[in-house]
């Protein structure tokens, strides 16, 4: 479908000016192309990564004003104005992103509102930028000695850039960095546990969106041949977001659909509404505002979801048979002391959740952490994996202190984990979710993904993901959407994802919770098989039959303190454990 639809669409947009289409529609089509570039950035930013910017119009303004100023005042070539404009926009995005993206998600939108307003007032008040009148008399765009003019000549360039951006976005989303970006929306804990620096990818997407906006602004300046502050106001920034939301946030083609609908409807409303109301004014904002709220309420997936529903979906082609597997790390010798938890302590305000707990895990062992609800087991897991900072004590991994390291660094050392409440990307397939585990074992970045230089590594990643799914008996469901699986298979998928990181120690947080009896039995078989293959396991579990039949050693916790550590038989015989679980006789 895509194989012919995309080239066909591209050919139509390239040839449109040569067809007997009225100038009006060529102009509209150029506007749609320009808007699509900006909206595309927002699709990646808002729809895929879950970040919001109201300042995209300001980035467009940076591109446009740079082109206008440099070409009129200094007579610089368009290539240089593009380079300078894009660099300025990227620099501004880097500063805004660096300041806000480490904090909660709502600081970026607030910062971009302030940035949009401040920039707009600067443009409107600076003498050398022409104040409210802006800059007039921008030359037409000349590339390679060809004058593109402002209409039919410019159209193919605008659309070539818009379509290239769409292609780049599609390629990016289906790649190693793309999966990392898709993981951003559902909180950073899981992504960080897979070795992904979520801050870096948030910044990458924000900068990419700003870059696309600046390119759109560059084209806009040569298209309009004048710039003034109003098309780059905060209202326009909100309108770009509206286009992305209306078209279908998260859908590359939604950006084009949203831009097209908004441009054409806006044009009609600007004529229709003042006539209806009797005075002039920007009444279309009433319609846009109400439609925006209604779309979020009743069709949060946007218009493209109604189109996309009718398009056939193809499962990923299995092209990774017989590739060289990803390199594995050297496995620790059997019996080596891997993990050493020494008097670890965690305090939340006045609550002592984990109080001086010490134990160790040796290579090839299965150690179970048990205890009543609220004993602090999951907190202990979060301390070991770096999700929470230690309040006291130390954690050592093969003799090296890992307390205080970020969870992605710990993951890269060979400790991988699953979560008590399954954390996954429901709109990706099982295979893609598991491939996320291979993130730390692969290298390809955004540029390689966009240029498709990452395909060999992608095949290795998918081969690894499939192998891990086969290991836990889920291979035949690899093309299903992860969100469609039942809880049991989702837990197994998390184990496969953790295995794909090639760990030396696997931490499983209640792997058997919510599983049916036969699922538990097959899970126990999988875990025994992993142990036989030399894997070390630390698991939190409530099901005693499950634990006692499986574990080599058991650590019992109650109210944050350690009751006992020993073999299953020793633990079962301990009066203290009985008291903790069953109460004491008085």
């Amino acid at each position, binding site marked *: 479908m895509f194989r012919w639809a995309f080239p066909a669409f591209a050919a139509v947009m390239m040839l449109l000016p040569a067809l007997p289409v009225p100038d009006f529609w060529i102009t509209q089509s150029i506007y749609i192309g320009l808007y699509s570039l900006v909206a595309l950035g927002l699709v990646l930013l808002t729809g895929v990564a879950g970040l919001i910017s109201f300042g995209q119009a300001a980035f467009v303004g940076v591109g446009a004003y740079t082109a206008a100023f440099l070409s009129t005042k200094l007579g610089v070539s368009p290539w240089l104005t593009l380079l300078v404009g894009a660099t300025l926009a990227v620099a501004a995005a880097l500063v805004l992103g660096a300041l806000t993206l480490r904090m909660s998600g709502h600081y970026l939108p607030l910062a971009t509102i302030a940035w949009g307003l401040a920039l707009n*007032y600067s443009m409107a*008040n600076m003498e050398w930028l022409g104040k409210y009148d802006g800059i007039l008399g921008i030359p037409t765009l000349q590339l390679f000695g060809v004058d593109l003019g402002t209409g039919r000549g410019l159209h193919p360039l605008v659309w070539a850039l818009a379509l290239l951006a769409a292609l780049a976005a599609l390629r990016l989303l289906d790649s190693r960095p793309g999966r990392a970006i898709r993981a951003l929306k559902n909180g950073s804990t899981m992504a960080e546990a897979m070795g992904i620096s979520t801050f870096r990818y948030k910044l990458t997407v924000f900068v990419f969106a700003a870059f696309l906006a600046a390119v759109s602004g560059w084209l806009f300046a040569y298209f309009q041949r004048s710039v003034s502050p109003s098309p780059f106001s905060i209202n326009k920034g909100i309108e770009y977001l509206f286009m992305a939301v209306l078209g279908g946030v998260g859908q590359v083609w939604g950006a084009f659909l949203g831009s097209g609908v908004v441009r054409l409807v806006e044009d009609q409303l600007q004529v229709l509404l003042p006539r209806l109301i009797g005075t002039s004014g920007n009444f279309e904002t009433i319609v846009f505002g109400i439609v925006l709220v209604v779309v979020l309420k009743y069709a949060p997936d946007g218009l493209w979801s109604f189109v996309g529903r009718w398009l056939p979906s193809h499962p990923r082609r299995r092209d990774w048979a017989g590739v060289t597997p990803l390199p594995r790390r050297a496995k620790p010798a059997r019996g080596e002391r891997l993990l050493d938890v020494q008097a670890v302590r965690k305090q939340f305000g006045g609550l002592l959740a984990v109080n001086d707990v010490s134990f160790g895990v040796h290579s090839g062992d299965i150690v179970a952490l048990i205890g009543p609800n609220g004993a602090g087991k999951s907190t202990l897991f979060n301390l070991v994996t770096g999700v929470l900072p230690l309040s006291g004590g130390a954690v050592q991994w093969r003799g090296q202190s890992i307390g205080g390291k970020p969870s992605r660094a710990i993951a890269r050392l060979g400790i991988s984990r699953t979560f008590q409440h399954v954390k996954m990307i429901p709109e990706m397939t099982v295979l893609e979710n598991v491939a996320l585990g291979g993130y730390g074992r692969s290298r390809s970045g955004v540029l390689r993904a966009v240029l498709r230089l990452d395909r060999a590594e992608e095949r290795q990643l998918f081969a690894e993901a499939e192998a891990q799914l086969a290991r836990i008996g889920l291979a035949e469901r690899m093309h299903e959407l992860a969100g469609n699986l039942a809880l049991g298979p989702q837990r197994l998928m998390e184990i496969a994802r953790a295995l794909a990181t090639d760990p030396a120690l696997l931490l499983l947080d209640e792997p058997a919770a919510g599983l049916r009896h036969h699922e538990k039995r097959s899970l126990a078989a999988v875990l025994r098989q992993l142990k036989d293959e030399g894997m070390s396991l630390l698991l939190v579990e409530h099901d005693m039959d499950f634990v006692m039949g499986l574990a080599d050693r058991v650590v019992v916790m109650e109210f944050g303190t350690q009751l006992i550590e020993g073999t299953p038989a020793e633990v079962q015989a301990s009066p203290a454990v009985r008291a903790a679980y069953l109460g004491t006789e008085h």
Partner: protein
Amino acid sequence: MDATIAGILALDGLTNGAIYALLALATVLVFTVTRVIFIPQGEFVAFGALTLALLQAGRVPGTVWFLLVLAAAVTLQDLVNGMRQRRPPIRLLAQAARTLAWPVAVSLLALWAAPKGLPMLAQAALTVALVTPFGPLIYRLAYESLADASVLVLLIVSVGVHFALVGLGLYFFGAEGFRNPSFWDQRFSLGGVTLSGQALIIIVASLALIVGLWLFFDRSLSGKALRATAVNRLGARLMGISSNSAGRLSFTMAAFIGALSGLLIGPTTTVFYDSGFLIGLKGFVAAVFAGLASYPLALVGALGVGLLESFGSFWASAYKEVIVFGSILPVLLWRSLRDPHSEEH
């Protein structure tokens, strides 16, 4: 710059800062209780100032029709939802009556009172009575059914509401700007600096409102219910506090504070239908300073914004907005150093 000019600027800054403080408090209140970043907070300011201006001119303010349209829309929404849930007609009618009673009553009062030329304080009271119901009506129309959506979805909704309100503001109030007469024309001289009666009123009213809010949150049961909802929505719900009524109450208070700010700011500047956005956003800068969480920090931030604005307009009058909104960058830097790991829930 000598001490007199500095004194004048400082007084000017504190006066405006007091109004930004009110708006920042409303912003923090709405965000903590409902997780809505309420961009349209400033719209209430413009509506308040314009309503009073039109009442002063002896005209029926557009607010009346605007309010009736909103109330009708909410009633319609309730009826449709109620019929879908097959609720008994009597209860639907009762609900509609409860929704419509206040807006219709206060509208009729405004229609009667507009040409009478009542004393200014009565008109001010009428203005607050007209603008305050906008809050809960907007909450029910736009936010209530999305109450469990993410902060970012609610933020986009806020932007949509802002667009719609500004456009409707243009329709109902027209493009004309108004500057209200002062409530009090007295002038006091304080060692070379003149303190206008209006500035005194602004500062005293803001202080009174802040103290009132503090008493409300600290002493009254509904204030405590709001605080409980702000700390933990689910926990509050389990204790029998409806998060919908908490949301409505916080929006009512936000609209009340906005309307009052509009009355206070009306005599100091010309207000247009879309002036509220910028005024409200200055309250936002202060609220960001407070991490959208702390009331005392919001107060400090708002006074800072006011001072920055007045001194900024003295040194570089064309760039005062650039300076005020640019100041959010160092504020964000400070916040990110202060709590770098605030992960979203």
